[in-house]
C-alpha cells in the first residue's frame, strides 16, 4: 500500500533514518578506526529526523493537512543492513552507500511529489539530500 499522507510518510522516513542510524552505530563498533565517522552519521540521521519533523509541524501551507501530498511505495526504499561475518571496511562502506541510495531516493521522490502542497517539507528534504551527497563522498573514500 502506497504512502500518501504526510503523517505516514514522515513516520516511514523516521523508521528509515533510525534503522540506518543503528546500522552506523554497529559499524562504529566493528571498525574502531572509523568510529567517529560512523557515529557522526548516526547522529546526523537523528538530526534529520528532527529537522523534518520541525518542518512538518511548524510551517503552514494551504495543505498542512497533507493527506494527498505523497505517493510512495515503501518497498522501493527497503534496505538490508546485515553484513557478512568478517566483512571488510570496504564492504561495509559499500553497504552504507546502498543504504544511503535508498534513503536519498525516498527524500528525492518525496520532495518532487509534495512540492505543490507542503512548501517547507520538500525544501527540507532537498537540504538533507544536499548534505547526504557530502556523506557519499566520505563513504566512497573508506576502505
Amino acid at each position, binding site marked *: 500500500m502506497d504512502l500518501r499522507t504526510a503523517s505516514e510518510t514522515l*513516520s516511514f522516513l523516521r523508521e528509515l533514518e533510525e534503522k540506518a542510524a543503528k546500522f552506523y552505530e554497529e559499524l562504529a563498533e566493528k571498525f574502531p578506526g572509523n568510529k567517529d565517522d560512523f557515529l557522526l552519521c548516526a547522529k546526523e540521521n537523528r538530526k534529520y529526523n528532527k529537522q523534518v519533523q520541525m518542518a512538518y509541524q511548524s510551517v*503552514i501551507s494551504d495543505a498542512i*493537512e497533507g493527506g494527498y501530498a505523497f505517493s510512495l511505495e515503501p518497498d522501493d526504499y527497503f534496505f538490508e543492513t546485515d553484513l557478512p561475518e568478517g566483512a571488510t571496511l570496504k564492504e561495509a562502506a559499500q553497504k552504507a552507500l546502498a543504504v544511503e541510495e535508498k534513503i536519498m531516493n525516498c527524500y528525492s521522490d518525496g520532495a518532487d511529489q509534495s512540492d505543490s502542497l507542503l512548501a517547507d517539507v520538500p525544501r527540507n528534504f532537498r537540504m538533507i539530500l544536499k548534505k547526504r551527497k557530502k556523506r557519499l563522498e566520505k563513504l566512497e573514500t573508506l576502505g
Partner: protein
Amino acid sequence: MALLDEPIKGVPMAENYIDGEWVESKGEIIDVVNPVTYETIGRVGISTKEEIDSAVKAADDAFDDWRRTPVVTRCRYLFRFRELLEENFEELSRVQTQEHGKCIDESRGETRRGIENVEVACGMPTLMMGDSLEDIASGIDEYLIRQPLGPFGVIGPFNFPFMIPLWSAPYAVATGNTVIVKPSSEVPFSQTKITELVEEAGFPPGVWNMVHGGRTVVGGMLEHPDIQGITFVGSTPVMRDVIYPGCGNTGKRCIAQGGAANILVIMPDCNVNATIPGLMTSFFGNAGQRCLAGQTLVIVGDDNNFYNEFMEKVTETTRNIRVGYGLDESVQMGPVRDVKKKESILNKIEVGLKDGATLRLDGRKPPEIIGGHPDTCFLGPTIMENVSREMSIVREEIFGPTMGVIRVKTLEDAIEICNESPYHNGHAIFTSSGKAARQFQYDVISGNVGINIGIVAPMAFFPFSGMAGSFMGVLHTQGKEAVRFFTESKVCIHRWL
C-alpha cells in the same frame, strides 16, 4: 496500519471553568460521541443562564486587575501558555481527531494554526502601541492609546474545535480584556484541554473562563450588559439572525463569521499534476466541513479534451481516497461529525440530482472504511457534473465532501459565478497565467483569494477575511484587526501652559 493512541480515556465529564475553578454544569448532561466508532467518549453539561451569568461576573470582577497588569506581564502568561501548547502538541491534536473525526494530519495543522495565534498575541506590547504627534498646533500634542474594554464572549464551531477560539481569545487577554469561551458542545474536549493549560500557565482566576452549552449560553452572552463584544464562527443563519442582531441590540462589538460555498476556477493552462492534490485537500479535506472548502469547480474553456482528461484524473484520485479513522495515519478522509449532518449532505445531493446534476462519482454510500468501522457518519467523496450556476448545490452551503462541476467559456464567466454566489469567503483560481491570476484577484468578490491555493486560510498575522454572506461586522479575527477589535482607541490632546 495501527491506530495512534486515543488520548480521551474512560468517559470523562467536560466541566466548566469559571473564576479559576472547575465546576460541573447543573444543566442537562449530554453524551459526546466519537463519529468514527459512534461510541460515547465523554459527557458535557448544557450550562444554564445562572452559570453563564456567574462566568460573566467572574470575568467582570477580574477585568480591573487584569487591565492594570502591564502588557509585558500579561504576555508572559501567554508565553508560558504557548510553551505548554507546544509540549502537548501531539495530545492536543489527537483529541481533535478523537472527538471530531478529522485526520491526524488535519488536526496537527489545526493545532499549529492555533498556536500561531498565541505567538502573534505574544507580541502585544508592540501590536497595541498607539500613535502620537507633537505640535498638532503650536505647543499642543496629540496621541492615541488603545485600552481594553472588559469581558468578551468567544463562541466556537464544531468543525475546528481547537483552533477557532484561538483566533480571538489570546488577543483579547493580551490586550487586557477577559474572556468566556463557549466551545461547541459536540466537541468540548479540545477547549477543555486548552483550558487546563490556561490554568497550568497560571492566568489569574476569571481572566480566561469556559462555559459549555448551547443556545442558553449564547443567549446569555448576547443579552448580558457586561459582555463588551462577541466573536462568533458558525452557520450563516445563526450569524445573520441571532448573533449580529443580538450584538446590535445591546451595543456589543461583533465579529461574526458564517458559512461559505467556495468556488475554485480551473484555467486550461494550470499545472494539472500540481493542481489535483490541492483540489483533493480543498474539497475533501476535513470531509468538506470547512468554511474554506471548495464546493464548486468551474472549468474554463471549451476544449473537450482538456476537460475530459482533467476530470478523469480528478475522478481517479478522488475514487482512491482512503476513508476511515483519522488516528490511522494512512487515512485521508474521516467521517462527518454526526448523523444529522450526514443526512443534510445527502439531502442536498438529492436536490442537486433532481435539479439536473449527474453523478460522476457517487459517495452517498461510503466506500470501504479502513478498519471496518460502522458507516453511521461516513460518506464517500461525491462528484457531480452538469451542474449549473443557479442550482442549490452551488448557491447553498453543503459542508460535506462534494464537488459540483460547471463548465464555462471564459474567465469572465467564472468570475461572474463567483460574484453572484451568496457567499464570499475563499474563492480561488488555478492557472499559470499571471494576467488571469491578477484579473481574478482584482475582480472577484471574496474575503480571501487563492492563486494556485486550494484552502485560502490566512496566517495568524493576517485577518481572517470574509465578505457578504460569510461575514458580518467590520474588523476580523486574527492579527492587527483583532487588536483593534479588542481595544478602544482613546485620543488625548495635551496643552501645558
